[in-house]
C-alpha cells in the first residue's frame, strides 16, 4: 500500500514556464512534507519542506502548497530552467520524538526544454 503517490512519472515543460509537480498521501498521521531533487548517480538533495500547520511555503523559484483536506501537495517551479531537469521525489513523515523517517513517492522525471 503506497502511502505517498506521485501519479505522473514524467513531465516536460518549456524553459521559462511553470512546472507543477503533484503528490498525494493517504496517511493522516503525516505532518511534515518535503521535496527532494535527484540527478543521475547522485543522492537526493533536499529542496523545500512544509509543516502541516501551513498551507504554503516559498523559497525563491520554488513554492510548495499543502491541501490537508485533500491530502495533496504540489511543488511549483517558476520560471523553470533547464538545470531543473531531474527526478523530483515527494516525501512525508510523522513526528516520533525527533525522528524523521521519510516515506517517499516514486518520483516524477521533470524535463525542462530549452
Amino acid at each position, binding site marked *: 500500500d503506497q502511502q*505517498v503517490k*506521485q501519479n505522473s512519472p514524467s513531465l516536460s515543460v518549456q524553459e521559462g514556464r511553470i512546472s507543477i509537480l503533484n503528490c498525494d498521501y493517504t496517511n493522516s498521521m503525516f505532518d511534515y512534507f*518535503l521535496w*527532494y531533487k535527484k540527478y543521475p*548517480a*547522485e*543522492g*537526493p*538533495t*533536499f529542496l523545500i*519542506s512544509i509543516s502541516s500547520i501551513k498551507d504554503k511555503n516559498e523559497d525563491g523559484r520554488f513554492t510548495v502548497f499543502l491541501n490537508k483536506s485533500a491530502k495533496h501537495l504540489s511543488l511549483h517551479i517558476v520560471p523553470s530552467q533547464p538545470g531543473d531537469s531531474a527526478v523530483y*521525489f515527494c*516525501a512525508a513523515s510523522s513526528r*516520533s*520524538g*525527533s*525522528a*524523521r*523517517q*521519510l*516515506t*517517499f*513517492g*516514486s*518520483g516524477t522525471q521533470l524535463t525542462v526544454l530549452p
Partner: protein
Amino acid sequence: GAGVSQTPSNKVTEKGKYVELRCDPISGHTALYWYRQSLGQGPEFLIYFQGTGAADDSGLPNDRFFAVRPEGSVSTLKIQRTERGDSAVYLCASSSVDGEAFFGQGTRLTVV
C-alpha cells in the same frame, strides 16, 4: 568532505556472498538512516540510528540484513547470503536533531 560519504560507489557480488556497505555521515549529525531504492521507485526506509543504537529497524526486509553504528558516527550495512532481489541503490542519510536529512550518493549493489 562536508557531505555524507558512502563506499563503495558500486559493488558487484555473486549470489550467496556477504557484503558490507559503509556510510560516513556529516560530522556532528546524531541521526543516521539507511534507505534502499529499487529501479523506478522512491527510496524505502530500512533502519534509523540515534547515536549508537538502532532506534527503528522496522524497514529491514529480513534477518539477512543488519546494520551497526558502534561509535555513533560511521555505520555499516551488512547483507548476508545476498540474493538477486537485493540489487538496488543503498542510500545513507544523516541529520541533526530535527534537521533535514542529507543523503549520500549511494552504493549501487548488483547481485549476479
